[in-house]
């Protein structure tokens, strides 16, 4: 059975599980994004229109219809992090990755995004990579963390 079929089977067949399904599917893939084909399959499974699926997928920022790198790097841009130097962190991340906001590195390993507040303001400035939040960052730590991901690939 395909990855998607397995995920669909995890929850009752009811369209209120659409967001859960989309999140699980993204988590299970090497590249966190939802393809046209998957949208069609999901729509058929729940008996809803593909437009309904894709509009939900584009509404939520954790979901993506655009191909993204293996690790999505999200830098918080809101005030509590800003007050603690997030602008420098963003610059350090850009430099370490060699790409700009919204871009994916050439090796397909990282996509850089900005994010709204991560709810980690007691550890600001914070960055979320994949499903892990890093806190109390400075430029040096950013470098080391990104190198760590590069080495682990």
């Amino acid at each position, binding site marked *: 059975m395909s990855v998607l079929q397995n995920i669909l089977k995890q929850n009752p067949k009811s369209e209120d599980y659409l967001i859960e399904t989309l999140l699980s599917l993204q988590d299970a893939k090497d590249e966190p994004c939802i393809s046209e084909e998957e949208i069609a399959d999901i729509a058929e499974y729940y008996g809803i229109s593909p437009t309904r699926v894709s509009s939900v997928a584009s509404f939520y920022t954790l979901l993506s219809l655009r191909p993204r790198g293996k690790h999505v790097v999200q830098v918080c841009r809101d005030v509590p992090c800003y007050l603690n130097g997030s602008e420098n962190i963003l610059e350090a991340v850009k430099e370490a990755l060699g790409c700009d906001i919204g871009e994916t590195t050439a090796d397909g390993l990282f996509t850089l995004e900005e994010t709204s507040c991560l709810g980690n303001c007691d550890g600001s400035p914070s960055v*979320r990579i994949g499903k892990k939040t890093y806190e109390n960052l400075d430029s040096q730590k950013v470098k080391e963390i990104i190198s760590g991901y590069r080495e682990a690939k």
Partner: protein
Amino acid sequence: MEKRILTARFGKIDPLSIDDYIKNGGYEALEAAVKMESDTIIDEIETAKLRGRGGAAFPTFIKLKALVGEKEKTRYIVCNADEGEPGNFKDRHLMENDPHQMIEGMIISAYTTKAKKGYIYIRGEYDHSIAVVREALAQAREKGYLGKNILGAGFDFDIEIRSGAGAYVCGEEFALIESIEGKSGRSRPKPPFPTTAGVFMKPTMLNNVETFANIPHILEMGGKAYAKIGTESSKGTKLISLSGNIANRGVFEVPFGVSVKDAIAKLGRGVADGRKLKMVQLSGASGPILPPEKIDVPIDFDHDIGAGAIIVMDERTDVVDILLRHAEFFEHESCGKCTPCREGNLHLVRLLRKVQAGSATADDLRVMENLADVMINVSLCGLGQSAPIPLATALDGFGDQIRDRLAQTETKENA
């Protein structure tokens, strides 16, 4: 200055061990509740004067009463753990340090209202909270606090976690309900309120994590004793989230009535690195921005404490930079359903960028003030209604600094 009720077990129990929770008084309130009449429980919560901790400060007993009074028997209990307002992180601390008190509060609410199903909607970025709560639910189920015939009292109730997917607006009650239904998070016009037509159009009691977490404590100490804590308008304690340029960031629990100024000085140990205070924002991105001379106000529901965020900004901070960042946040997070918010936030961002660049005129400022007025008055949900609050309050406290930016422009243009 601190009064630790909800945070009393923090650091003392293993959040992943229900036995630790039970050994420290956990689930005793539920044991007592299932021997009580529904009305008696509601009376206790009314006597305690418990009000919602998610920002709107609505009396909790009214929601319980409304649900009980509905003809429709399918009812839902929903816990709002979306916590997306910048500067707030206390619900994360509650879930990750002592998850069962929120769950116990939900079970007591279910017993009181005969709801059979509950949801905890946790923002998708809170991976660790989701993991802790998932384990806590499994353990509660195993011990018979969730499931069929709970504690032999003849009532069934279970809870499911729903993950958010990165949308601040989903903290708004109807947007959250839409999201639970698997849709884009867009609000609905009120009335009807969720207590009449919430999840799947069924009666729904929706409350914040901290609100639910208070319920077991109220039953334990009794509504009367609980109402002795706090101020006339605001009873009990409040979890506050201190952030920004403050020496000691973190979550603290204080009785209502402690002043913002004292909380910053004593719990937060003042402005970081010995710098001078420039301004304080209460409640989060949508709250008022206050100058130092206005922060000697009590933490209570009459002074815009919202969900409890206190963001401290030092002398290096530029008020226009802050307003622009907030405006960009709201512009990004607006669900786009209604025009005043969708268009209003776009224009505010555009105009604030002009102010920042030094090219705005006095007319631009008047447009911003009018826009703010319209957004506050006619937006469909709280997001649009509160987005211009920082601007409106900053014009009060820091109007000169903002107008100075315009005056310079005009001189430049005239030169």
